[in-house]
């Protein structure tokens, strides 16, 4: 069904042989990955393995050097695409929330719909308020971000992206900067999104969560997807020794904390 929906017969997100260098350093090495519509893909892997870079390439915050990326039938690697137009369809949320500190919560959520989509203030507010209600923060609408907890800020960052009604959400370790007791609220929201059928690619260190929400797990190592598969297989029976090592180390660390 999702295949028919985007016209050219491919998956919603198609990544083909994508490579990327920062100067001499190769950060992505022939990455190939398909993400069907409504699927959730989790990227796991050690620090520096290229998870963030891959997500940033998908949103054209970085340029790939080789290969091809197609999102919703649009070839990102084509030179003539409208970058802003494309980004409106793809939400990205970062580890550091990056809310705009000089705007209230409500203004943060309304800015892009008003300025990038050009909808009226009233319409933008009609969009923003229910989203804030959904995360239980409507009462904070007129507060500035520095008055919110990290977990609250991160949820605002997520609904700020959702206010653009994106077709794809990219989440880059959105719980890594949070105190443990604040993580679950954020994960609940992501789970809700997954259940509502949002297509998502997320980089995460939360293995339990990845296992629960992902349709597919990709293990990145040195810029390659070394192993991919359904969560049950990756977590229970990883084929690659490096995957096994990585999981053992992460699970050990989780037990220790």
């Amino acid at each position, binding site marked *: 069904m999702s295949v028919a929906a985007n016209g050219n017969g491919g998956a919603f997100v198609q990544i083909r042989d994508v490579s990327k260098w920062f100067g001499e350093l190769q950060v992505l090495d022939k990455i190939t990955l398909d993400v069907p519509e409504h699927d959730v893909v989790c990227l796991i892997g050690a620090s520096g393995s290229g998870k963030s870079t891959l997500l940033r390439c998908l949103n054209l915050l970085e340029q790939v050097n080789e290969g091809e990326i197609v999102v919703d039938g649009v070839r990102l690697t084509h030179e003539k695409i409208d970058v*802003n137009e494309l980004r409106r369809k793809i939400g990205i949320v*970062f580890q550091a929330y990056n809310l705009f500190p000089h705007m209230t919560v409500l203004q943060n959520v309304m800015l892009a719909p008003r300025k990038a*989509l050009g909808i009226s203030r009233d319409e933008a507010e009609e969009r923003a308020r229910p989203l804030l209600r959904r995360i239980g923060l409507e009462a904070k609408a007129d507060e500035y971000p520095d008055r919110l907890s990290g977990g609250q800020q991160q949820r605002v960052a997520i609904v700020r992206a959702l206010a653009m009604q994106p077709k794809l959400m990219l989440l880059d370790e959105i719980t890594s900067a949070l105190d443990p007791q604040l993580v679950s609220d954020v994960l609940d929201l992501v789970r809700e999104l997954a259940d509502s059928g949002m297509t998502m690619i997320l980089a995460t260190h939360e293995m339990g969560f990845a296992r629960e929400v992902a349709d597919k797990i990709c293990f990145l190592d040195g810029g390659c997807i070394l192993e991919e598969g359904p969560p049950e297989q990756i977590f229970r029976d990883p084929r690659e020794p490096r995957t096994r090592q990585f999981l053992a180390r992460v699970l050990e660390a989780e037990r220790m904390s």
Partner: protein
Amino acid sequence: MHAFRQVIHAFFNPHSYTLAIPDVWAGFQVNLKMMGIAEVLVLVFALSIAIVRGLPGPAAKPLRALAIAYTDFFRGTPIIVVSFLIGFGLPGLQLAGISNQSNMVYGVITLTLVYTAYVTEVYRAGIESVHASQRSAARSLGLSYFQSMRYVVIPQAVRRVIPPLLNDFIGLQKDTAIVSVIGVSEAALTAQQFSNRNGDFPSYVVAAVFFVLITIPLARFTDHLVQERERKERAQAF
């Protein structure tokens, strides 16, 4: 004892003050006018040039180079030389609309040219101090480069640069006296003429007091803003 009395007379003759105050005050109004106009112009031009200097991409290279040449030239040239260039040079060109302005207009042009160069650097530092992740966040929401600047980067940058900017304005206010060299009848020149006529110095004291009186509030306000910011940052650190 005689010398002492002479000093007293030269600086503190009360009668001389009653004459000097209205005289210098008339001149000082020209200073105030030049300050006001130049400050508004500087705010606008400096921001524009700072934005031009930050434009991305190879296509904007000539514009960036032009902006750099401008700031280099006017930051490097003594303001008194710029005064001569504008105050004597422009009339010499005999161009309609440019060469027949009053000395005060040339004074305002001089101050604007020089201080725009300083304040451009202040703005630029402010713009660069806004973390790249703020731009990423704005761009990734689909805002264009200019929208990101307009709504996200510049509002944050401007808030941060207000104290250094006010410091530059204190400099500008004082330098309104320098353009007296091209014959603007402002406070310093009026004071000098008064002093020459009377053979004493109260007119200079009056001029000094006027300048100090308008600088003090600005200086205190700047201190207040800096303290406020430090307090906020300390509060955030905990």
